[in-house]
């Protein structure tokens, strides 16, 4: 049995894959102690299976977890107080970065701060040269003095980045030892160990971000693992990485930078699956509406784009993370986003969020600021008696009062108009973020299916689909837990690298083979406990370039070896071919240099286990309720329970389709059909003539 849990700002989602069935659960996130939220969700699953948490966890082979904890700490400025130790003469690496700007005439803001302030940056006398030679030995007494200053400055974590530590790590290692001795208990990151890449800024930035996350992520992961083990879990705890792979929890604790974008990384995997299955389209905009943020990703011709260089914030101006990541954009707009008025009387929604605690006003947990969820209650979108399947009664009067007082009154609107305005502003922000990943990248959103994930997706999915001109909107049955669902659909993936430098004019075959064999061992070790039956697939890659180039291309090794002259000859041919394919030219005269060797292990899961479409007999007569739509005002909308709607059923708006996890609002003029996989497939309105169409999936690209 496998479990996947995704902890968001508001809800903790759990997906249980047992035998041939997949079940979904949702529980409130408990920010002070996130492990409780996970255990609460597991308790729901146990109850459902008429067993205990202990017994359920004992049966669990693999537990996959994604969390927004790291990124939230960065966004809210609550990472550890971190210092940087660097080579003397180069204290401004994090400030100067690599230069560059994308908008040369945009002078609407000043120069961005470094990730670690200059006041917490410390130089040590030492210097290593480009060949790894020691130009100036590390001044140990001076280094100890620096470490004493760190203690005085009450530093909670330390990043170390020295020039050329990738060629010779001796001085970084020595500083590591000195830190252990003179600053015990304070975690640190050595740049060469985290990301042995050329270019000092990249290593420094990586090390700084990683170190700043260590105290909080270590505490979190230790706590979570202890809680799960204590509750009977004896399987393998895997953490989702930013690039959509997984690593063992202990590896994540050693390098928490990999968890930065782990929260939303898996949603596109599930989104792609449903777009192909229910939307018959290989382009998809996958949008995950959380309580706090709206995360969007583009699936283009069946592929999920991974950015090679990821930045926190703007490219060149933010902070480079140095590792690849699934390309997901986030805006602060979700169910918990707060509606507020600025001094000029303009209505805004977000980015502030009521999050899980206190939550929207209607949760009755002390929240007083109206949110998107409150607006949905006022508009009749959400039934206050049937939220989370009736597990939580909502305070509709509280929602109405908050919107009346804080928004409707000041704007001079009636209550429903004000609530509709809140929805409209939130919708607009979401549309802008989708346009950023489509229009701004030259993709017409009218050629993509919109896949709505997250419990609040259905509230305005039709409105968004209409504005974008989406041909279809798909709300999967598992949409409310899209990321966790994706985690159980993606193959287990991990990657390892070894530094290796050799030119084709004097190739070191023996060393290359030795390193490849070490990489193979690490991959097999990872695969041995993956809990999958199919044999692991291991891909070996040489990063190579022409001599005097400084950026590498990935060239897969045909047989995973470089021991023979024939293997080198194959690599050379393949490099020329890849270079010509990517860059339109080849240089047969130039020497080829191999700079790194990597191995990627994939443990395939086989066909994804289908969602269980559980149907209940109709328990009550068809009902209607009054729902307010902007433009038409209040209308009687038919209310359908999802679990009482068999596949093949067609529903036309105005209507509401609701389940324990989600509510889908069908505007007048929209129609929906329940697909055989359980999804709700909506046609927002009749397509305009002459609009570009959505490319149907072709079997070879949907994997």
């Amino acid at each position, binding site marked *: 049995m496998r479990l996947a849990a995704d902890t968001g700002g508001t809800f903790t989602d759990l997906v249980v894959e047992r035998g041939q069935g997949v079940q979904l659960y949702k529980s409130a996130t408990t920010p002070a102690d996130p492990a409780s939220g996970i255990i609460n969700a597991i308790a729901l699953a146990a109850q459902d299976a008429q067993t205990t948490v202990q017994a359920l966890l004992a049966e669990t082979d693999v537990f996959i977890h994604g969390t927004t904890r790291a990124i939230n700490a960065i966004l809210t400025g609550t990472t550890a107080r971190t210092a940087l130790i660097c080579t003397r003469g180069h204290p401004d690496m994090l400030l100067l970065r690599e230069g560059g700007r994308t908008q040369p005439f945009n002078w609407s803001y000043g120069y961005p701060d470094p990730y670690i302030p200059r006041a917490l940056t410390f130089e040590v006398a030492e*210097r290593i*040269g480009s060949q790894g030679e020691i130009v100036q030995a590390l001044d140990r007494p001076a280094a100890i003095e620096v470490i004493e200053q760190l203690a005085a400055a009450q530093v909670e974590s330390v990043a170390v980045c020295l020039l050329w530590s990738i060629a010779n790590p001796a001085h970084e290692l020595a500083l590591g030892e000195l830190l252990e001795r003179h600053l015990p208990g304070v975690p640190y990151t050595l740049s060469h160990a985290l990301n042995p890449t050329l270019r000092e800024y990249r290593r420094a930035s990586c090390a700084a971000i990683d170190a700043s996350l260590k105290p909080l992520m270590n505490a979190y992961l230790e706590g979570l693992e202890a809680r799960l083990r204590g509750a009977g879990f004896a399987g393998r705890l895997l953490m989702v990485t930013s690039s959509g792979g997984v690593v063992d929890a202990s590896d994540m604790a050693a390098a928490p930078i990999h968890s930065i974008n782990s929260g939303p990384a898996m949603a596109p995997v599930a989104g792609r699956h449903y777009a192909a299955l229910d939307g018959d389209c290989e382009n998809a905009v996958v949008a995950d509406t959380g309580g706090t943020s709206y995360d969007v990703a583009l699936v283009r011709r069946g592929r999920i784009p991974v950015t090679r260089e990821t930045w926190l914030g703007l490219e060149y101006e933010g902070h480079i993370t140095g590792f690849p990541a699934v390309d997901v954009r986030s805006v602060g707009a979700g169910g918990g986003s707060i509606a507020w008025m600025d001094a000029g009387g303009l209505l805004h929604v977000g980015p502030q969020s009521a999050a899980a605690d206190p939550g929207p006003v209607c949760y009755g947990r002390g929240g007083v600021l109206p949110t998107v969820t409150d607006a949905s209650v006022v508009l009749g979108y959400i039934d206050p008696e049937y939220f989370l399947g009736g597990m939580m009664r909502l305070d509709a009067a509280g929602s109405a009062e908050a919107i009346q007082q804080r928004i409707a009154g000041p704007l001079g609107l009636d209550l429903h108009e004000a609530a509709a305005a809140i929805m409209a502003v939130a919708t607009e922000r979401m549309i802008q973020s989708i346009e950023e990943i489509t229009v701004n990248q030259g993709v017409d959103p009218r050629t993509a299916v919109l896949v709505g994930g997250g419990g609040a997706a259905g509230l305005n999915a039709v409105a968004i689909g209409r504005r974008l001109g989406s041909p279809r909107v798909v709300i999967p049955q598992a949409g409310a837990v899209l990321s966790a669902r994706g985690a159980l659909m993606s193959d287990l993936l991990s990657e390892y690298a070894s530094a290796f430098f050799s030119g084709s004019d004097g190739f070191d075959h023996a060393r290359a083979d030795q390193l490849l064999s070490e990489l193979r061992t690490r991959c097999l070790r990872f695969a041995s406990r993956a809990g999958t039956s199919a044999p692991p697939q291991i891909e070996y890659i040489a990063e190579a370039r022409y001599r005097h180039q400084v950026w590498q291309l990935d060239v897969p090794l045909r047989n995973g070896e470089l021991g023979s002259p024939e293997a080198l000859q194959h690599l050379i041919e393949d490099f020329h071919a890849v270079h010509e394919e990517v860059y339109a030219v080849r240089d047969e005269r130039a020497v080829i240099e191999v700079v790194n060797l990597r191995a990627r292990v994939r443990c395939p899961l086989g066909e994804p286990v289908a969602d269980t479409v559980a149907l209940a007999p109709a328990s009550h007569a068809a009902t209607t309720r009054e729902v307010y739509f902007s433009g038409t005002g209040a209308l009687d909308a038919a209310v359908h329970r999802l679990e009482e709607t068999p596949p093949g059923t067609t529903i036309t708006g105005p209507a509401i389709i609701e389940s324990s996890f989600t509510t889908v609002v069908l505007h007048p003029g929209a129609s929906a059909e329940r697909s055989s996989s359980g999804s709700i497939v909506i046609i927002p309105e009749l397509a305009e003539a002459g609009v570009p169409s959505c490319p149907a999936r072709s079997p070879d690209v949907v994997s």
Partner: protein
Amino acid sequence: MADRRSTTEMSNGTEPRERDVVALAVMINRMEGVVRKMTNTLFRTARSTVLNTARDFSCCVVSANHELLAMGESLPIHVISGPDLISRWLTELHHDLRRGDAFLHNSPYHGNSHAGDHCIVVPVIDEQGVHRATALVKAHMADIGNSEPTTLTATARDVYEEGALIFPCVKIQEGYRDIGDVIRMCETRIRVPEDWYGDYLGMIGAARVGEREMLRIGEEVGWDAFERYVADWLDYSEERIRATIRTLPAGRRTGYDIHDAVPLRGVENGVQLQATVTVDPSAGVIEIDLRDNPDCLPCGINLTQSTSQTGALIGVFNSIDHTLPRNTGSARAINILLRENCCMGIPVHPASCSMATSGLSERLAGIVQRTLAEFQDGIGMASTGPECPPATAGLSGRDPRNGNARFVDMMILGNSGGAGHPHGDGWLTNGETSDGGSMMRDSTEVLELLRPIRVWSDRIVPDTEGAGRFRGAPSLYVEYGPVETELEVLYAADGTVNPALGTRGGESGALVRPFMRKADGEIVALQAWTRVVLEPGETIVSISSGGGGYGPPVERDPDHVRRDVLEGWISEQRASAVYGVVLASDGSIDLEATAARRAALAEGDDGSAATRLEDSVMRLLEPGVRLWPTRGPTA
């Protein structure tokens, strides 16, 4: 979708036509995507650090009617004007363009920026043989076979002394194959021909990627539809900029600056420069008159037609709504008046324009943006620091690690500080006004990997900013030298005499200061325009210029001054003397003392000379001096 379309009168008076705004935005962004792919190709494949790390190159797409369509992340000085002129020359000089052709172009007399920028120009030809667009790659080469191993020579009296090989749209590929004659000419003249050829291949690759992608667009949308998109895009851009100009105050002002002297007869006293800016809101037009400037000068700093136009346009684009598209459409609303045989105009052969992308074009953009700032608080900008300190020198020598192979390259570290502007402080890595900070900077490790040099230091210099309500960026200190070899260093630095000027009461930035540290540790000052050969153990110390400030320093937010002190950007003394902000011993702002000090400054107690570059620089020249913070780190 009805609300997302707009109907507008075309500026050429044709029938109103409905624009599909979404489809247009998709098309424009798709072309930007083409340019990004071109850029990525050259960046990832080039052999010189000036291209593969500093990214001193540009890619763009020009219409068959010579209109700039998309420029991606290109450097403004390379493309805002230039590719349009080159496209015109291409069709004038070659009447039979065929698919598979490529042209090498660098002529300063035929629309190029300066000879040091090699262009690869590829006409995009459709199935019927019709020229539909042009893909253009322009790269600042490490070497072009000049008389000295640098592409930036201020002290050449004419193009003959500069020694540049000039290629006015010379065909270098036919049927997608190199024309060997031209390649051999380059290889027998340009130093380190294998690196040149590697860079050339990268440029060809980038241009061919652009050609391939443009052909794909043409096939998908049809060339006629493509041309309608182009017309809509340029009209839309023109409407946008005219609407912005209509909000500006009317008037006419003349701004001035001085370029440093060059040690040649005729320029030994510096060059007085001016620009007259007329804003006519009713017509939605800005006019910039550059005709009252000196004739072409007997040295290498003359501007080309493209850099005269672009320098002025950059000054305008820096000053007003940054969201305006930058293309031929928006340039229609800006009239730039040039004359022939003028150092800021249209050069006449054999005037040398070796430095046309830096020196005078920097001064020109600065004049325009400072003059616009005088029209109204909230627009315009101060001057960015003058350019080309020794941290941007041409480097050459032999690499003992690589069989004493010859190398020529150009480093890009520690260039000028950015100017203060109405909304924030100067951009630290601005480098030059002419690229708006979009050029990258070298990595110490990449430089040391590729060349036998060592970068000993790369850091900011406190107290060198042009003070202001929003201050200029400070100078950068870079120290480097050869490793077990000799290193020839060539640079041509403006700004050792005339600093970057502030505006609206903002102060000037610090001057450029070149030094050499001898093997025994002695520091000697170097000249502004020179060639130095360093022995092992010797280093260059380069201090770049600081940017000018915007608005009076006493109007600076005291919290920003405090942060500058705590973070080591300025000293506590300077905070008090120049900004009138006094800090208490715990690092908080002493409100009372600050009020008193600001009142005194308002009455004319000018302490700005008190703490300046000299102290700051001299402290830096001592090895191992800890520069900051002046007090301990605070929680």
